[in-house]
């Protein structure tokens, strides 16, 4: 018996620019890194296919410009894909439909009910001038909740679980430190119990003790709530700690994938080898 993946991504392709005769065929494209030297078209994601299983953490590593964040933006509908398919299986009416082809209303529904997103920069995920409790409530309101008392108590529980002191819950995140903002963002992403959570470089820019806190929190969430996560990072230590399986990306392609231990201990691709051995 095989487990059914909760998220299937097939041939996700995202390019910036129209392409030319030299680069438009996918089989023999002559690119310099990820762009075409002739017309300047950038191929940010090429033919990405992978599965995410319930309750697992999938790590994605790669150098900057390898297409990690673009892929996340595509999955979260922040950016439109050029072509490709993705399926979400969890008994919902759009379970067997390509989510990239759904109407923007349906995509918004998926964002509000099925997804949580934690951006690298909290400015993108939070409304900095609204209270922290309001920020969390926003996601609940979007998911259809219209009961203030209920939303307030949910927000309180979440803020407590990410170690934000409750006496500051009515304060705006702009008054918080970077680590606290990131934790509020995580609380917001978790508020409607999404089955799928995207984490984009969540610990980048945080100091080590706060990093450890946030990583602990993510581990705890996975253990206790069984949420599937895609974690993008260029920090191999983060990937080693969190991810069950890992995908290595280079120039918009998946060059290697497998169990995290396997990839870190016995890298096959030249780039992965370089990446792993350049660890200080």
């Amino acid at each position: 018996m095989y487990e059914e993946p909760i998220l299937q991504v097939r041939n996700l392709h995202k390019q910036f620019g129209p392409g030319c005769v030299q680069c438009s065929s996918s089989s023999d494209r002559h690119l310099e890194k990820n762009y075409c030297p002739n017309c300047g078209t950038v191929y940010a994601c090429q033919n990405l296919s992978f599965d995410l299983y319930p309750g697992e953490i999938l790590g994605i590593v790669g150098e900057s410009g390898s297409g990690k964040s673009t892929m996340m933006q595509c999955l979260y509908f922040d950016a439109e894909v050029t072509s490709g398919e993705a399926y979400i299986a969890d008994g919902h009416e759009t379970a067997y439909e390509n989510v990239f082809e759904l109407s923007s209303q349906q995509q918004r529904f998926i964002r509000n009910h099925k997804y949580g997103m934690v951006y690298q920069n909290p400015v993108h995920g939070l409304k900095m001038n609204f209270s922290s409790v309001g920020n969390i409530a926003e996601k609940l309101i979007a998911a259809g909740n219209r009961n203030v008392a209920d939303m307030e108590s949910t927000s309180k529980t979440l803020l407590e679980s990410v170690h934000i002191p409750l006496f500051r819950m009515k304060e705006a995140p702009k008054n918080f430190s970077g680590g606290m903002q990131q934790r509020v963002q995580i609380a917001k992403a978790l508020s409607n119990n999404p089955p799928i959570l995207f984490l984009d470089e969540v610990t980048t820019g945080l100091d080590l003790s706060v990093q450890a806190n946030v990583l602990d929190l993510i581990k705890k969430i996975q253990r206790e709530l069984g949420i599937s996560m895609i974690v993008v990072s260029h920090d191999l230590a983060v990937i080693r700690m969190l991810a069950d399986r890992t995908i290595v990306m280079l120039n918009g392609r998946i060059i290697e994938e497998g169990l995290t231990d396997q990839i870190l201990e016995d890298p096959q691709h030249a780039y992965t080898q370089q990446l792993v051995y350049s660890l200080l």
Partner: protein
Amino acid sequence: MKTESHFAFFDEGSKKEIRRAILKAVAIPGYQVPFASREMPIARGWGTGGLQITLSIIGKTDVLKVIDQGADESVNAVSIKKLVNSTTGVKLVERTQDASIIQSRHRIPEVPLTEDQILVLQVPQPEPLRKVEAREYITKILHSEDDYSGAWLMLFEQIMKYGKTSTGADHPVYVNNRYVMAPSPIPRFDNPKMHQSDALILLGAGREKKIYAVPPYTDVKSLAFDDYPFSVESFAGKHCHLCGATEVFMDELIDTETSETIYQCNDTSYCMDRLNENEEAEVKGNYV
């Protein structure tokens, strides 16, 4: 301008364009239709949106009433009335019942409107989501995707801060269960008057270049959380010190002689009507 101007100030092309925007607005209740707001002889922000609607729908047989915060005689209302009158020659009135077009700033009259009347409201900010999202490009998408979490979030924040929703005016409403609309800065007291209104309600924002509408007999529901129901301003136990009216929207004044707080009808023509009725009844009583 007095003798040579075109009927109702505008050239026919302008009127046609604005009427088209109005028709579209009526066809899609609550949807903000962009229009080419004209330069007017009054400053933007002083009712140019309402004035442009009034001028493009008015005919020779129409009877016009203009109110400004409930008052028929404030400068703004008088100036607008004068402009319309000098370019069209229509009759001006103060009694709500006698008017066929009522242009208003920030109030809906106390006397219920009828099917034969059109209410034109002046709007400073037509976008109910503007406080949460500054970009028009994004708010258009939010409207199209029926995502009004921003409007709800504002109310939620008020409840968090003050323990209740604290919109003094312009409390957002759902129109026909689809679009969330800014009802213009009318007090919450007037919001229920929009629901299933007999009269056509047109809203014009001149500076923001938007026209929208609530057609007659359309559902208009004020946004409210399950555990914090919508409520209007309460004037329980208060009465107008002039005409004695209760359960109307009142202004709070300080009596300059006694320094006591007194209340007065905000709708001046309604108050005047009641005073006249009272006097008539008194005179009749004395005569018999």
